């Protein structure tokens, strides 16, 4: 889809992991192409595995800071230990920082009378951008041991917005992460619409209820898609009933198919590799986005 409309962002989230966010996102990319894609599941990014971008730009970003104690200056007093609320100062002489626990608050540096503590920016993440057959894709891979995944998500979204402005592709599809915490909030806030991909299981329903409340908390309009809807039909009905009570539209129900798993094994995006009973609801889903995003989304032929 190409046009001069206002930039809009659709975020795909799920609460529970493994419900099929990335698979659905890849199918939407195929149906809506060209579209800007942002893989914001920076702790476990997978969209590139299906869409095979040709990466033309990578850069690292530094997003968090850590304390460092100069062993030559530290006299082993416990001023820093007493004040650190994160248990990040190890009980050794000279003192050492446990980088996994350090939040970079700076309090230890404040109280050290020997000036032994300095701060440095840690590795952060590697951001990558490239072109897929379905449009530009931007994503990031969190460095091992990095904490600030929310900030990395924000950076990926900013990069996607730049690409949207530069290419005139108004729709950004954000593949979010599971959960309800920091990276999810960073993917969700300010989005125009959240598509929640859920599955009919006890955990699926439990997590759906939580993620709907998160979306509501951040005032993001929400629609739901039930994936693998036939593995537990009674639960599917329960999920639909719950959504109806909350006034949230269930826009598609996708049956379980081993061919979807097979297409993942072959690292192919779903459309063209899955049977009609899966493809049809995916098309219904894409079609419903026109109404919910209030924009023309599907070009002819789809």
């Amino acid at each position: 889809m190409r046009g001069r409309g206002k930039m809009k962002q659709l975020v795909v989230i799920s609460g529970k992991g493994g419900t099929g966010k990335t698979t659905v996102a890849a199918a939407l990319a195929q149906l809506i192409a060209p579209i800007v894609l942002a893989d914001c599941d920076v702790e476990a990014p997978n969209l590139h595995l299906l869409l095979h971008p040709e990466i033309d730009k990578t850069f690292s970003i530094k997003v968090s800071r850590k304390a460092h104690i100069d062993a030559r200056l530290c006299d082993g007093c416990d001023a820093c230990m007493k004040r650190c609320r994160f248990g990040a100062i190890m009980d050794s002489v000279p003192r050492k920082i446990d980088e996994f626990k350090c939040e970079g608050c700076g309090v230890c540096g404040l109280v050290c009378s020997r000036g032994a503590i300095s701060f440095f920016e840690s590795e952060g993440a590697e951001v990558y951008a490239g072109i897929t057959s379905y449009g530009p894709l931007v994503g990031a891979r969190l460095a091992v041991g990095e904490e600030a995944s929310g900030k990395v998500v924000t950076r990926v979204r900013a990069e996607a917005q730049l690409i949207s402005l530069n290419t005139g592709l108004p729709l950004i599809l954000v593949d979010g992460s599971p959960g309800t915490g920091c990276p999810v909030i960073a993917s969700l806030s300010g989005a125009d619409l959240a598509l929640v991909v859920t599955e009919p299981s006890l955990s699926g329903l439990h997590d759906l209820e939580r993620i709907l409340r998160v979306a509501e908390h951040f005032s993001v309009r929400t629609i739901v898609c039930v994936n693998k809807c036939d593995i537990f039909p009674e639960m599917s009905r329960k999920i639909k009933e719950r959504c109806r009570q909350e006034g949230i539209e269930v826009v598609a129900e996708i049956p379980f198919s081993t061919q979807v798993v097979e297409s993942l094994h072959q690292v192919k995006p779903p459309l063209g590799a899955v049977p009609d009973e899966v493809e049809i609801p995916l098309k219904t889903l894409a079609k419903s986005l026109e109404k919910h995003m209030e924009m023309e989304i599907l070009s002819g032929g789809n």
Partner: protein
Amino acid sequence: MVISVAAGKGGTGKTLIAVNLALSLHRSGIQTTLVDCDVEEPNAHLFLKPEISRREKVTVPIPKIDLDRCERCGECSSFCPFGALATTPTSLLIFEELCHGCGGCALVCPRDAISEEERVLGMLEEGNTGEGMGVIRGILDIGEPKASIVISAAKERMRSDEVNVVDCGPGTGCAVMTAVHGSHLCVMVTEPTPFGLHDLQMAVEMTETLGVPSLVVLNKDVPGDTLARKFCEKRGLEIALSIPFSRDIARLNARGVNLVDVDKEWMDKFLSLYQRAEEIARCGGEVR
């Protein structure tokens, strides 16, 4: 003994493994507690139905400003690296969700205008299942970003004379690292899809960085020399358990039915997983 169960990718079956492992241990007479540290989406209780005997709020200290004393000098807001304070000519604003509770603002205030108050960001629940197994559950409040604080609070409740099975959330970031940090062994659950493999690689890097030895469980496993198997072989990762890809298991799991309740054979399999975990943990991950 602390065994964490992590994955990288979501939906690979962490909770399935953690719950069935804990139940197998408990039923064979080993004092066990399941610690649900997937605080963003804690689900283990759906499978264990514990009776909760104790509930406690998880809080973080945030600044409380005495505006009569505050002179809007800006010392606190320029110190705060989290952007949780903003000084304006007429006021001092607090953005509570951004505050990490380090207490630095109170330390730098030259007028002693900052005290602290507790802000609730989650809940801890403790209880027992019908058959007497311990359950600890951390729950992050809706809209709260900082899962790690609730995870740490849940882990503080662990008893060192028991086996603690820690169910971690998906991902490889700070929440998961907080959950895995300090455990004697990490059971990594993966599925043989390219997604599972990709995220397993990230999870392996994480456990190696944390210095926690690990074992792999292949869930939704398929026969043959899959990429996941090849990867484990190449990296010297032991596959301690394989659970086949099965619509029946998916159906049971969706309904909250535990494997060990369906077929006793599973209990033996989970106990041998524990045995390997214990051997590796005892040797600090050196002997394989």
